[in-house]
């Protein structure tokens, strides 16, 4: 009896494994922007979603729900996910669609590791002429489009206007921002003296990208060619020393928070423990939502502005996100599914811009919905003055890691500024010399 029961059970298990093969084309979407399945795991309400992670998660859920004939598999990778992508490509098992910073695209396009996407865009009825100039410049390499741009991103001064008012740094309802390094130091000292809090909040731990963006912004402002050619960086210069010395001075005088990683810095800003958090456009949406919350320290006291002009002319360093297609052999049905996915994302570019990023499609900029979003007139200058690195510059992910590490050492005082910049230049140039 027992043997018969066991045999039936075993047969049942075997039969349970027998099901018709899933013939639907599968697309593997690999993205960063974090994991928020606990909140948005089953949501398809794109308009109701907040934050980059929430909006993209609901977008993909909605696409899967509206396209049951396509199997969508999602890989969420830790930011920025390039080591994983490189390993996947090296192993011959790349995903189909991948989020990528526009500054990184040249690394992959120059080696033929990603495909030009014009055929997919055509199949999705996406006209490249619809991209904003900044977005198009970010994805166009040697005359070919290697990605569908998704946004343009930059860094902003996110400002707690209540603390700025307490420090006497508000005029006609707008924060008074500096016009020179000397003014920046003077205002920061005044802020600290009057509020007892640091003027700046900075994520300095495990977040090298901010310091690099700060340095790039003010080198571009001074007309300094950071990458004079494809194989060299120029950082051991008086212009760079001026910028880093200012960052070091802010740190040394306690005019900025120290020893904070990104979550700690964000908490400090939303709890009103500092005046200005220089961080990306992507935090505009979340901070605006925080400012709308009655019990928040930011309630009714939140403003944003592009990085102030401290030297030369305004030239904030900008980048962007894009969707790339790693080179691989794919069936016709899979390519059609990928085109449908890109077309779907393009239609929702406005929803993505609610995060605070600037849209990649020029038509979205002109829509009343976009213009009605809070603070967008404050950051419009970013679209005009934003500067990207030259298209020939490769290995930005690795390069920013190397420069960021040396800047961290210089700013925290563990290395002289001159030595840190010299070491950064040497390490980056060595990287380029090794590049095949």
């Amino acid at each position, binding site marked *: 009896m027992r043997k018969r029961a066991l045999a039936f059970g075993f047969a049942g298990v075997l039969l349970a494994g027998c099901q018709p093969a899933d013939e639907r084309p599968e697309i593997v979407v690999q993205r960063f922007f974090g994991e928020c399945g606990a909140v948005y795991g089953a949501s398809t309400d794109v308009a109701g979603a907040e934050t980059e992670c929430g909006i993209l998660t609901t977008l993909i859920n909605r696409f899967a729900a509206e396209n049951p004939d396509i199997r969508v598999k999602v890989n969420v990778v830790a930011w920025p996910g*390039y*080591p*994983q992508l*490189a*390993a996947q*490509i*090296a192993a011959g098992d790349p995903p189909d669609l991948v989020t990528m910073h526009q500054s990184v695209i040249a690394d992959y396009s120059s*080696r033929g*590791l990603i495909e030009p996407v014009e055929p997919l865009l055509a199949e999705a009825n996406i006209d490249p002429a619809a991209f904003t100039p900044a977005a198009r410049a970010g994805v166009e390499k040697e005359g070919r489009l290697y990605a569908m741009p998704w946004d343009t991103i930059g860094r902003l001064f996110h400002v707690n206007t209540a603390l700025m008012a307490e420090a006497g740094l508000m005029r006609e309802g707008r924060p008074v921002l500096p016009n020179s390094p000397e003014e920046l130091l003077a205002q920061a000292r005044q802020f600290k003296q009057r509020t007892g809090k640091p003027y700046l909040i900075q994520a*300095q*731990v*495990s977040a090298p990208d901010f310091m690099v963006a700060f340095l790039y912004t003010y080198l571009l402002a001074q007309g300094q060619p950071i990458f004079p050619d494809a194989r060299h960086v120029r950082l051991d210069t008086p212009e760079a020393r001026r910028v880093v010395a200012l960052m070091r001075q802010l740190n040394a005088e306690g005019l900025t928070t*120290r*020893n*904070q*990683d990104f979550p*700690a810095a964000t*908490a*400090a800003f939303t709890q009103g423990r500092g005046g200005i958090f220089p961080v990306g456009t992507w935090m505009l949406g979340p901070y605006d939502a925080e400012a709308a919350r009655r019990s928040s320290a930011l309630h009714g006291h939140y403003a944003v502005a592009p990085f102030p002009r401290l030297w030369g002319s305004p030239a904030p360093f900008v980048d962007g996100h894009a969707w790339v297609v790693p080179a691989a052999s794919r069936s016709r049905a899979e390519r059609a599914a990928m085109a449908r996915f890109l077309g779907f994302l393009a239609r929702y570019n406005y929803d993505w811009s609610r995060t605070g990023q600037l849209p990649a499609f020029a038509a979205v900029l002109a829509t009343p919905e976009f213009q009605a979003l809070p603070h967008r007139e404050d950051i419009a200058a970013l679209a005009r003055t934003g500067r990207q690195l030259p298209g020939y510059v490769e*290995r930005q*992910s*690795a390069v920013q*890691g190397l420069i960021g*590490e*040396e800047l*961290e*050492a210089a700013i*925290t005082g*563990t*290395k002289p500024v001159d030595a840190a910049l010299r070491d950064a230049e040497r*390490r980056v140039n060595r*990287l380029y010399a*090794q*590049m*095949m």
Partner: protein
Amino acid sequence: MTGAARRDGWVGYAFVGPFLLVYAAILIVPLLMGLWISLNNADLFGRREWVGLANYAQALGDPVLGQAFANTLTLTLLIVPPLTVIALLLALALNRATRLAAILRGVFFSSLVLSVTIVTLIWRFILTPDAGLVAVGLGALGRAPVPFLSDPAYVIPALAVTTLWWSLGFPIMLFLAGLQQVPHDIYEAAALDGAGRWTVFRRITLPSIRRTLLLVVMLQTAAQLQIFGQAQLLTGGGPGGASRTIVLYIFEVSFGRWELGYATAIAELLFGMILAVTLLQYWLVIRHEEQRA
């Protein structure tokens, strides 16, 4: 050799053959391939350009690798001796057949089953200067928080403590297994002779488990020289490379910078270092045993 002996020999080879094949395929062949790649300027995607020993020469003059080497060595020295001593003491304390000892054995072993991600998350909550457990405690005492994860002076000790907490379980189990192999009649004889606890430990317990002790030290030394996850997840190697370990550097060079040839050369150097240290430890103990014999 007789026919039977020859047949026995073939049977022996038949038993070890499958294992040797798999071992060669997943360890020896990659090791040799790695040696070959290290002699090339190579990227992740198959490009190769012969450079001979240039990658090794570059490694010897690389200040970042020098810093990573010093960090790794410091971490190993901060972890292995205390880990061995604490694990041995806990094993001695828990080597008894009581319910409490059984529960505590489970408790001490439990940290080992956690993944490095969870371990570093727990220790981030403890060490972070903003709202970490230690910072809150210090705040209650009116003291300023200590930036364990962002001050070059504290990051290595912070990684060492995290690793100690995580790694205790396995050596305790090894020591317990070793202690339970010691014949009980020796302890009875020592008790009859009136030997004190320290004498029993020094003259009976320690010599009886010396091979387990050697195993623990060798395994832990090899493991800590390859420390990676804690450094990557807790500090990212920062600040300014102050907690970058050799394997973290290999990861950055290979998957971040795509310099596979150089990364492989560093990996080969690390392999040689681990092999040398392990053999040295083994030789020291064996030599000591031979002298006693």
